[in-house]
Each structure stands twice: as C-alpha cells, then as structure tokens.
C-alpha cells in the first residue's frame, strides 16, 4: 500500500496532490482547489482556497516551497490547511478568521524543483527551466519577480543559484502566481511567503535600504508575532527588513507583493539556525508548524481588525 500522507513527515509531490484532493472531498464547504497555472515541466500549480464560499471578503495569500530544498516550508502549508479545517468551530480565533477571511494557500510554488529535490538532487534550489545559451538549468523564482529585478549584476549568471531569469516573470510559475494575486488584489490584504532556514520574520524591502512607509506598524506586528511564536517552545526569531537583516536582494516576491499594494507582507525563514539547515529532521516538523501557526494566526487577526 503506497505510504500515506502524513503531517508529521515530508511528503513527495504525488502525496501532496492526493492530499489536496482529499482535503477538497473531506471539506467541500470550506476547501476548494484552484489550478492557477502549470510549471515549466507541465506540473499543475494548485492553490487551496480555505474559507466560506459566500461574498467577497478580506483574504490572506500564503505560498510555500519557492525554493525546492526548503522542505519544511511546504510541510507548514499542509499543516496550516489541516489545522484550519480541523479547528474551525472549535478554536475561537481560527473560527473568527475563517468566518471573516479567506486563505489562499499555495502548498508548493516550485513544483518541478521540489520533485527534482526528491528524485535527483536533495540540494536543488531553483526551478527546472532550461536557459538559452547555457548548459545550466533553473531560475531562482525568488529573484524573478518584477521588483528591482535587475538591480544586482550578480543574479544574471544562469549557472548561479540566484539566477534571476531572462526577464521579470519569465518563469511560468512566477507568472501564474503574479497573475493570480493581481486578479485577487482587491481582497488580498496579507502576503506571507515561507522559506527556511534561519528563524527570521522578514519585512520589505530587500532591494533598498529605504524603509516602507508603514514600517513601524509592520515591525510592531512582527515583534508581537515572533513573541507569540516563542511562547510555544521558546524558539527565538529575529525580525526586520530583508536588506539590513540578511542582505540586499532583488526580484523577491515579498518586495513585489508589497509594491503591488499589499501593505502587510512578510517572509518567514523557518527552523532551524543551521544545525541541520535544510535537512531539518521530520521530528521537528510538528513543533515548527505549531509555533508558526501562532504567529500566522496573530498576523491574520491583526490585519482583520486593522483594515477596512
């Protein structure tokens, strides 16, 4: 019997697709699956919409797995959907959130890369597109967004891990996500993207040292979110703008979403701080997801209360 999907384990793409179908069948009133496009290798890009089917409401867009080797990221998106459907009607905060908001969850952004990291190279990061005039494969999808896309010369080498692609949104995966967000912009109030590792909660910008206009508010939200996260297991996160907290980066999804007008934009760098790095043992998946859940619920609740 093919091994089942498990929230406590890493699941390959085949299991995740089956899991999306199971969630829709099990919770038809709350979960729907939207195919927002397909990848370079023609795998489907699925977003799960969590929330009631009725009128237009504020929504949160969350994506996981933009970098193939960061496996704990897709594990969190699966956990989030599981907890949302399981605790609706039981947990006060989740019930309030789902009564008034929708969540669009992209469990795996870089599907081709994720499959490759399972089948061929566990250390793979980029997508799997072929590059003209180069033997090197792949674009770093988190350098492919139209946010100061070509401001750093060191992202134009196709053989480098941070290759930005031949043009902004050149990658089918990027375009599928940006088209979806643009077409739902009226309702999307929060953008959250999940990476690993480092234990950080990052804010715009990466492409400039300039602070965003609502930085004070974003920093306040980030501080409380990281404090709430640490109440579970005392896991320490730092927070701040990408540029000064880690290093300057161009073409990131976070900066693009913020500049598009989504004024509550965050990037989580999940566990750990390097002991295992991308190879976080499965035994740490649940604790990582539980603590991150607290922070995400706080962020969503804050935005629900502070936006019109």
């Amino acid at each position: 019997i093919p091994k089942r999907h498990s929230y406590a384990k890493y699941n390959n793409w085949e299991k995740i697709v089956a899991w999306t179908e199971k969630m829709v069948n099990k919770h038809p009133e709350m979960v729907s699956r939207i195919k927002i496009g397909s990848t370079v290798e023609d795998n489907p890009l699925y977003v799960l919409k969590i929330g009631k089917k009725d009128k237009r409401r504020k929504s949160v867009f969350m994506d996981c797995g933009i970098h193939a080797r960061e496996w704990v990221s897709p594990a969190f998106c699966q956990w989030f959907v599981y907890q949302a459907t399981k605790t609706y009607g039981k947990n006060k905060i989740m019930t309030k959130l789902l009564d008034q908001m929708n969540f669009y969850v992209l469990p795996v952004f870089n599907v081709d890369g994720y499959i490759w990291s399972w089948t061929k190279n566990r250390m793979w990061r980029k997508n799997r597109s072929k590059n003209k005039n180069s033997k090197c494969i792949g674009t770093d999808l988190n350098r492919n967004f139209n946010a100061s896309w070509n401001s750093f010369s060191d992202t134009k080498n196709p053989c480098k891990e941070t290759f930005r692609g031949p043009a902004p949104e050149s990658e089918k995966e990027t375009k599928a996500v940006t088209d979806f967000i643009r077409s739902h912009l009226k309702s999307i109030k929060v953008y959250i993207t999940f990476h690993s590792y480092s234990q950080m909660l990052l804010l715009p910008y990466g492409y400039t040292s300039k602070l965003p206009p609502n930085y004070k508010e974003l920093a306040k939200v980030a501080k409380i979110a990281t404090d709430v996260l640490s109440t579970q297991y005392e896991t320490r996160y730092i927070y701040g703008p990408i540029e000064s907290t880690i290093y300057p980066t161009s073409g990131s999804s976070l900066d693009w979403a913020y500049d598009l007008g989504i004024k509550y934009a965050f990037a989580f760098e999940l566990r750990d701080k390097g002991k295992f790095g991308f190879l976080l043992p499965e035994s740490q998946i649940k604790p990582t997801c539980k603590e991150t859940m607290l922070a995400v619920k706080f962020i969503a609740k804050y935005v629900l209360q502070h936006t019109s």
Partner: protein
Amino acid sequence: IAPVRFDGEKVFRVKPQDEKQANIINDLAKINELDFWYPDAIHHVAANMTVDFRVSEKESQSIQFVLDQNKMHYEILIHDLQEEIEKQFDVKED
C-alpha cells in the same frame, strides 16, 4: 540520471572577522564548488556574518587547510551530508 549522492560532503560554518577574511571565502569560492546555504550566494558574503556552505569531501580538506592557515573561526555543521539526508526521515510511518 541516477540521484545525486552526497557521501562525505560537509557543511562548514565560517565567521569572517573582517574584510580580508571575507575575501578569503570569495577566493575559495572561485577555485572550489561551494554551495552557499546561508547567505544564498557568494556575493552576499561580508565581514561579521555567519556563512554556511556545502563542499565535497575531496575539496573539504584543502578548504580546512586554508581556514586554519588564516586562523579563521569555523565549525563543521554537517560531517557527512548523505548520512544527514537519510537521518532527516526520523518519524516512523503512521
């Protein structure tokens, strides 16, 4: 294509104390195949930051020699990557 194996590959954590030491890492990246885990790429490496990179077993000895020779602060986070890859699956099937 057979799956890539990482037998004996190591992950180093280096803390360059100054510009000179950051340049040493830069030079190492020019002559060795370093896979940067943190930061994402060599062009982000600067003084006083934590730098994690993966390197093959063959190249790790020469890397270690250069780091020792320049009295650089470093530790080996992962001594055998393939082993760690297999150990990450530490939760039994339901």
